[in-house]
């Protein structure tokens, strides 16, 4: 594979403009100091309890996501471009959601195959005809971007259900400002700290209409042992709203209520971090202990807003992904500003043939998988792994998509003995209600192993602070 584009050094040669001040600073740092600061950062994270549980790893019930101190820097122009593309994309995703749960014009127009939508497990027939406030289904979207060249940003994946990681965006910045205040005086970095406020505004703006008082908002968490519990409590705390578990909620007289020290109190907006399946045992998975019996009826009658809406996952389904360019054109009338990664839907026999012939070069993913589980990275797999995967693929081609192995951009990262390039991606967090709000920044995930392209925290990835520079 050709050398990857480096965020700081491009393809070699001169340091790129957004990194100039930083590179100068980095040049005069001693490895020893950096390593000390790195240990200090780890201590800060551990003290404040910013931990992440990895499923199937009992030893490390509370693990830290490794934090790399060398920031990822985005210029003002680059960000302005991304911003426009992201805004266009999230509007189209919500328009698509409204459409598939109403008249299904896009299916009638033949742009998206019907069975891909209605037979999809992420599509909830219960949502047909439901009108969420402002017509917004996915209020909080994480867009996973990768960069493959100076001007090439591609969308790898949309997260329209319950994207996580925003607490790391905020805490990474806090930590950086604490450890390296001088860096922030040398670089004009746009702040990200307004995110919780923007989130609160977003939630308030989609409250049920005709409330007598200010809406009561709560964050629903599956509980202490959930991998993202820290983030749930962090966001509730930053917004000053209650963090509730299913046992704190009850539906009485057609309203959602929480059990407080003064008795039952109505909840108007529920930012849930519980999957659709578990939301309401009366409607979805009857075995669920994480949801609230009857909540879906309250939702359907417009007396509580669930954020993100149930059924919003149909928009980030990996099988739908390859149709997103058409979806954007269909609803906005304009070509997409941000490109997709070329994708082969293995349900299509021509595509399947191609994929089977090129497995060693491709990345193959499960349609419903996430977190980097159940995927094949062709160039980094052994013959045996590829053959084992081939068998699974042939047995159930509908379950897979394939993409070329991208040469993800790299960024200088503190490795064992030196600063060296590691591959990364970027997840900005978009808020959608009366307007689209996008905090300048995001979560940069970095593959800490040399040459690795898997950035997921469950697979040994780390994070970096993400700087968007002021013009």
């Amino acid at each position, binding site marked *: 594979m050709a050398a990857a584009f480096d965020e700081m050094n491009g393809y070699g040669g001169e340091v790129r403009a957004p990194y100039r001040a930083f590179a100068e600073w980095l040049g005069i740092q001693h490895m020893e100091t950096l390593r000390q600061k790195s240990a200090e950062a780890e201590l800060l994270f*551990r*003290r*404040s*309890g910013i931990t992440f549980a990895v499923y199937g790893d009992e030893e490390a019930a509370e693990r830290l996501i490794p934090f790399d101190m060398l920031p990822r820097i985005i210029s003002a122009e680059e960000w302005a471009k991304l911003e426009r593309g992201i805004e266009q994309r999230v509007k189209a995703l919500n328009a698509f959601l409204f459409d598939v749960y109403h008249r299904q014009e896009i299916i009638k127009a033949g742009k998206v195959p019907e069975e891909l939508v209605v037979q999809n497990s992420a599509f909830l027939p219960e949502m047909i005809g439901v009108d969420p406030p402002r017509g917004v289904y996915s209020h909080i979207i994480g867009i996973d971007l990768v960069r493959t060249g100076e001007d090439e940003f591609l969308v790898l994946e949309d997260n329209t259900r319950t994207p996580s990681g925003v607490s790391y965006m905020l805490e990474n910045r806090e930590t950086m400002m604490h450890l390296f205040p001088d860096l922030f005086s040398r670089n004009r970095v746009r702040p990200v700290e307004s995110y919780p406020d923007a989130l609160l505004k977003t939630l308030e703006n989609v409250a049920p209409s005709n409330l007598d008082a200010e809406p009561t908002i709560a964050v629903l968490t599956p509980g*202490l042992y959930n991998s993202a*519990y*820290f983030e749930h*409590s*962090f966001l*509730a*705390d930053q917004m000053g709203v*209650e*963090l*509730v*578990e299913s*046992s*704190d909620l009850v539906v009485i007289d057609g309203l959602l209520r*929480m*059990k*407080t*020290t*003064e*008795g039952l109190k109505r909840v108007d907006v529920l930012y849930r971090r519980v999957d659709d399946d578990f939301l309401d045992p009366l409607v979805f998975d009857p075995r669920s202990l994480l949801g609230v019996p009857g909540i879906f009826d309250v939702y359907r009658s417009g007396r509580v807003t669930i954020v993100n809406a149930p059924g919003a996952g149909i928009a980030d389904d990996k099988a739908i992904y390859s149709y997103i360019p058409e979806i954007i054109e269909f609803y906005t009338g304009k070509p997409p500003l941000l490109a997709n990664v070329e994708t082969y839907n293995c349900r299509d026999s021509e595509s399947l043939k191609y994929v089977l012939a090129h497995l060693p070069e491709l990345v193959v993913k499960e349609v419903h998988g996430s977190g980097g589980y159940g995927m094949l990275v062709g160039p980094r797999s052994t013959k045996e792994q590829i053959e084992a995967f081939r068998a699974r693929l042939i047995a159930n081609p509908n379950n897979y998509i394939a993409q070329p192995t991208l040469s993800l951009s790299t960024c200088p990262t503190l490795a064992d003995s030196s600063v060296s390039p590691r591959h990364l991606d970027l997840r900005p967090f978009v808020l959608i209600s009366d307007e689209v709000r996008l905090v300048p920044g995001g979560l940069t995930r970095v593959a800490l192993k040399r040459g690795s392209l898997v950035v997921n925290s469950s697979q040994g990835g780390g994070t970096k602070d993400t700087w968007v520079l002021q013009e």
Partner: protein
Amino acid sequence: MLGRTANDLYWLSRYIERAENMARLLEVGYRIVLLPREGQGFHEEWRSTLESAGCLQGYVQRHGELVSQNVIDYMLFDTSNPSSVASCLASARRNGRAQRTALTREMWESLNGAWLEFSAIKPSSVTSNSLPELLDWVRSRSALYRGALLNTILRNDTYYFSQVGTFIERADSTARILDVKYYHLLPSSEMIGSDKDNYQWAALLRSVSAHRSYRWVFKDHYRPLKIADFMILNRQMPRSLRYSYDELTFALRDLAVYYGTRHDCHTTAEATRDLLLEADIQKIFQSGLHEFVQDFIARNNKLGTEISAAYHFID
């Protein structure tokens, strides 16, 4: 505030207070055991220490005989003992983690820090020499948490429930020390007023951190009657029953104002405080200290139950 939040805050405070009381009891027991004494002295001391801590039954089931090293391990590290320092810190931290949103950053970090540091200690590394240092550390971490709470928390229901938890636990602990340790030191009621075994009385006061303040207040030798008076009725002594109930009734009254409603627990707390306000130590002894303390412990437990019902701690 969620009922579950109130419940967790209340227990968080109780566990921190309990961890501190365990450390204090252990420290005193250990000092006495170090003394050259005759016969079964040290057994008796560990027995009363475990009994005051409410762990005697559990200990006997687990270890049988009273052995210093086992007692120390049981009270400090044994997670099968729900009142060991290790269990208290873990429970406090679990409650705190569930209520991160209710705690300030300083509170959380002192709590999490205490738990992390304590978890890193290997029980086998604790020697006779390092024990006092470790017990000091436990008390200082409890003080740090209380300090963070008092200095950073908003004066609203978060604070009030935390106060209620602290002082209901403290009242219970002081009452148990009185009932067990004090009682053991009194061979018979006729002996009241004698100066027997000065060191033991000092140790008793030490277990409520009052051996020096006693001198300040009474400017006198340790006298059993005065010590009981100090631990039960003195309004200046921060671990006395009276002081604990002053704080409890204040916090409950604040809650009533905050929510605009009074409950049974308010009446109960005030009645107990009135009792302490009007009591006379001579009369308490005449009608029986043991009976008095037992009655107090029952009242205190009842108050806990009523608070939990009034504020919907659990469903």
